[in-house]
């Protein structure tokens, strides 16, 4: 129903969309035929896992192949490297061209955090599609049983986990969260930030020589190793959600996206017993990691205008609202204020979820890992060091200095 005169001229155009198996993808898929009907542009959608998507995009773009027009890209991860490589088509000119972007699009509606997250060097390289951040899902019934209240600070969080673990005789784990090295920074980041630390200080030096960093590591390791499930070092969202959904864990500190998994009666035994809170503040305040996914256009695309048309459609306020109703945390503020959307949040768990997510969006720190080009390497390295503490082969002190030293190497 939107104005799409330019598109009418592009009949028989096919654009290739490379997407991940992700809630957003699953949510938007059913609407794509609408888009195709409206515009006559055919969308060829290829869905892969996160790593496969990254491999494929790297290879395709490296070969300067036009095989990808639009793809889902995680700016906090590969953004810098891809930007430097010139893989992204800068989007400012599309946004600023009224012929390509009508006013209804309402750019200003995007929340600042996610939107600036899509900018590198002050150039817009993508449009955000979903916001997420780690929140704590918890079992209201268990908290009640053991007489625990929602933790107000990090120490209480640990205390709560400890109580559950001990009182249930280890039948129920206190906390299920990430232990897989590559995945740790996402959850660990908030621990660090809540201690009042960024990944690096203002001069660009890693912050792991600070005692607060050691404290953060120690806290994370204690929480996961003592009050978490065995084998946590391999865990990421699959395992955590499975444990929580089977009622084996009282808390799950995971991406806000997991809500749909654990509230789906198909997957979960604990539906109706779930509450959500944001990770409590530490001495340095409350700075959970915030993460946005965005869609970008390949610099080598041969159908850039059609690609932009798709992006514009997918991120339009109307579409965003439709997706939000399916549980996609929208980067547009208007969606959150939308009455129809609010109606879908009637369930208490969803309200709590929205509230927690709000905290994430408001206070969130967009750096999932240290802001370096070698993002993956740095994250893996941090995770590996923390795992050593979890496994008991190193102290927090040793891990911190290892991270510090290796980060310095990576920075070289």
């Amino acid at each position, binding site marked *: 129903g939107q104005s799409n005169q330019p598109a009418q001229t592009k009949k028989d155009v096919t654009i290739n969309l490379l997407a991940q*198996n992700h809630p957003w993808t699953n949510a938007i898929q059913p609407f794509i035929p609408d888009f195709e009907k409206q515009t006559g542009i055919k969308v060829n959608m290829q869905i892969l896992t996160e790593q496969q998507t990254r491999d494929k995009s790297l*290879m395709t773009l490296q*070969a300067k192949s036009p095989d990808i027009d639009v793809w889902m890209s995680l700016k906090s991860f590969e953004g810098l490297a891809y930007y430097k490589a010139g893989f992204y088509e800068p989007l400012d000119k599309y946004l600023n061209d009224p012929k390509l972007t009508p006013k209804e699009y309402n750019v200003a509606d995007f929340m600042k955090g996610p939107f600036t997250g899509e900018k590198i060097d002050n150039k817009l390289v993508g449009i955000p599609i979903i916001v997420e951040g780690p929140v704590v899902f918890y079992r209201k019934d268990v908290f009640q049983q053991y007489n625990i209240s929602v933790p107000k600070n990090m120490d209480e969080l640990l205390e709560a986990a400890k109580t559950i673990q001990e009182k249930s005789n280890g039948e129920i784990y206190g906390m299920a969260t990430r232990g897989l090295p590559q995945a740790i920074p996402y959850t660990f980041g908030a621990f660090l930030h809540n201690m009042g630390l960024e990944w690096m200080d203002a001069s660009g030096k890693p912050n792991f020589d600070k005692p607060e960093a050691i404290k953060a590591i120690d806290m994370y390791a204690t929480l996961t190793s003592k009050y978490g499930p065995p084998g946590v070092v391999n865990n990421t*969202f699959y395992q955590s959600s499975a444990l929580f959904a089977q009622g084996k864990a009282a808390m799950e500190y995971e991406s806000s996206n*997991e809500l749909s998994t654990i509230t789906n009666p*198909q997957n979960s035994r604990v539906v109706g017993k779930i509450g959500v809170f944001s990770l409590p503040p530490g001495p340095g305040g409350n700075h959970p990691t915030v993460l946005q996914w965005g869609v970008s256009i390949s610099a080598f695309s041969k159908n850039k205008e059609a690609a932009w048309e798709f992006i514009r459609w997918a991120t339009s306020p109307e579409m965003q609202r439709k997706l939000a109703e399916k549980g996609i945390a929208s980067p547009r503020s208007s969606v959150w204020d939308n009455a129809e959307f609010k109606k879908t949040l009637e369930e208490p768990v969803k309200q709590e979820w929205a509230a927690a997510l709000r905290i994430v969006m408001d206070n969130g720190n967009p750096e999932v890992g240290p802001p370096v080009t070698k993002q993956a390497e740095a994250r893996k390295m941090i995770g590996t060091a923390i795992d050593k503490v979890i496994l008991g082969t190193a102290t927090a002190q040793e891990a911190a200095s290892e991270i510090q030293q290796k980060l310095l190497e990576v920075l070289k």
Partner: protein
Amino acid sequence: MRKKDYILTYLQYFILILLFIGPVLWMILSSLKSNLDITAYPPILFFQPTFNNYTELFKIYPFAKYIINSFIIAGGSTLLGLILGVPAAYAIARYRLHSIAFFTLISRMAPGVLFLIPWYLIASKLEITGNNFLDYIMLILTHAVITLPLIIWLMISYFEEIPIDLEESALIDGCGRWRIFFQIALPLSLPGIAVSVILSFIFSWNYFLFALTLANNSTMPLTVIAFNFIGEGATNWGGLMAAATIISLPALLLTLFAQRLLIKGLTAGAVKG
């Protein structure tokens, strides 16, 4: 075979089935469970079976298309591997050209990712990836890199087993080397062909790395689909298991069929001494 042997054999079958097929059965059972039951603890054997995973699978994915793609790629590369590999294996076995055998194996020795970028570069330069037909050809060629050395090496030892007397006999009967190859060596190495077909088909069928990057949406084979169940937000265990079950079926059927050729004692009665 004597009675005692039968009993002993079946006893071993039984234990092996438990060990080797147990996990597979678990997978198949899981494909009939809801995700909730799949991760249930303690694990449950008896449950309300559901075909949801399967029906959803067929609802979401154009399975027929993917199966056809898989057949084109795995079948094509197996066939190509046979056409290129069987004569080569014969020559290698009979003329002792071991260095060539070794050379062809290099393509199997190299890590698959080593090929990815260069091939992709070529494919995109030649604009292959956009064209379905060329894309199939490209996929068949790349998969033949997996099947060819497998077939060559498997076949070498079968050809070596054939008594040379038979080929000499054919020489005397006026056969050329090619005819000997086709009419004597080939029929007598049927068990080898069967093993080659089974294994190279399975390898090609299950190989996803090349297709992941080289295939486009309409030439994508079935196995790549399996990945679609693993993802951020939720892993659809039931769907994955159902897909894995379905993916395995054609290869299983092929195996059942091809092992008819695994005939024992083909050369019995041929020579004395």
